[in-house]
């Protein structure tokens, strides 16, 4: 599982989470900041995304404590590293 695969998963699941709220997610770049104000999501939505990613990948990169991330690429890297 490489970062591109995780990024695709993030885009798919975040679009679903936004759609549940009646929002449309703009296209994500690797450098998109989750909570920077450019996406129609809040911290509860981001928390939801992490639960879904753990279910889909079987990995929880935060199990040993918080890992700093702000962008799509940084989060994808955490999951890809946990899976490696």
């Amino acid at each position: 599982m490489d970062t591109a695969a995780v990024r695709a998963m993030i885009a798919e699941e975040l679009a679903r989470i936004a759609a549940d709220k009646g929002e449309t997610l703009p296209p994500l770049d690797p450098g998109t900041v989750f909570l920077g104000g450019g996406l129609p999501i809040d911290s509860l939505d981001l928390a939801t995304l992490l639960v879904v990613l753990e279910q889909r990948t079987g990995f929880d990169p935060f199990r040993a404590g918080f890992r700093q991330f702000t962008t799509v690429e940084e989060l994808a890297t955490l999951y890809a590293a946990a899976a490696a």
Partner: protein
Amino acid sequence: MTAPPWIDTRFRLTEYGETLGWPSLALRAGALEQAFRAGHGRAVIDGNRVATVIAALVAAERAGVELALRRPGAEVPDGFPAADGFSVLLPTSGTTGTPKLIRHGLDRLRGRLRGTGDHGARWLLTYEPASFAGLQVILTALAAGAELVAAPGEGAAGLARAAVAAGVTRISGTPSFWRAFLMAVGDRRPPLASITLGGEAADQPLLDRLAAAFPGVPLRHVYASTEAGSLFAVADGRAGFPAAWLDDGIDGVRLRIADGILQVNSPRAMLGGVAGKGGWLDTGDRVVVSGDRVLFVGRADGRVNVGGVKVSAEEAEALILACPLVADALVAAVPNPITGHILTAAVVPAAGADPGLVRAGVRDAVAGLVPAARPRVVTLVESIPLDSTGKKRRRVEP
């Protein structure tokens, strides 16, 4: 209008980018005072704008009436008896049902303000204005003659932008706020001189991350509740509080543990309080003594904190179980690095039920709860695992 003694007239409020000083606030207060005097002992005001809250506090004190601050979903019920003279009535945050109303005197709300000597400070308001914690921040900035930066209703991203733009120096927020704030500011950090956490237990990893992001900046976590008022602050950067305080007390507050629950005896408890024998008040917080520390391990009623909102897995589960297409369900609180905890649901569909309709039914069943109190991820399963006593295995971790 002369400012009351609890306002330093150097105070400025920047709310959604618009800055007001005492003269503007005094004009608003004067208009409200007329209306309050014509009322019948209680003034009720929407508490969703800081400028309105400040003007209403000044006006209600001058008019000698009780001020009830209304929040969305928290109306003041008819027939709730008004106090004699000035006091402040605050709705507590509930996830459902009727919010409790708690009455405070201004002197008690102002009981433990910190930072009132720093008129050069720029505070960021991260709490709702009409909440206990929100009023503490507002009253601190007023007393200091400082600047208060506010954008009620904005999420962490909007507040982070406002904090960076205004160069705020003091922020008080919940641990959930700080987690989201750290993610939102990235490397554009405001010039903080003081960091305060409150409203839910501060965990060690977050305290460590804040210390790393803002090296050398004083870091305190405070313990307070709507019923008990402000109790104490911990400034050593470690989670929990020193076990020695169980013997010695702290800042006039006595502490003890009864059946694993922290009890407090405070001179700053609410007016007409609900304290039991000898003034001891049950906090509902479960604690354990670990070495030289007392650590918070959850709520006695099983509620968990989801992004600063106390929610009940059982409450959501009962709503889902009432859905006719659901045969069984388990709602669990799982730890989450962003919001502290989050609720998830495992749902067993009724025999032959269409999965899409089951999901829709579950969604409708919890739609009346605030977003944090709803299970955010719903998984359809064939059965709910039971533990050795035949009960559902409910994973609720501190």
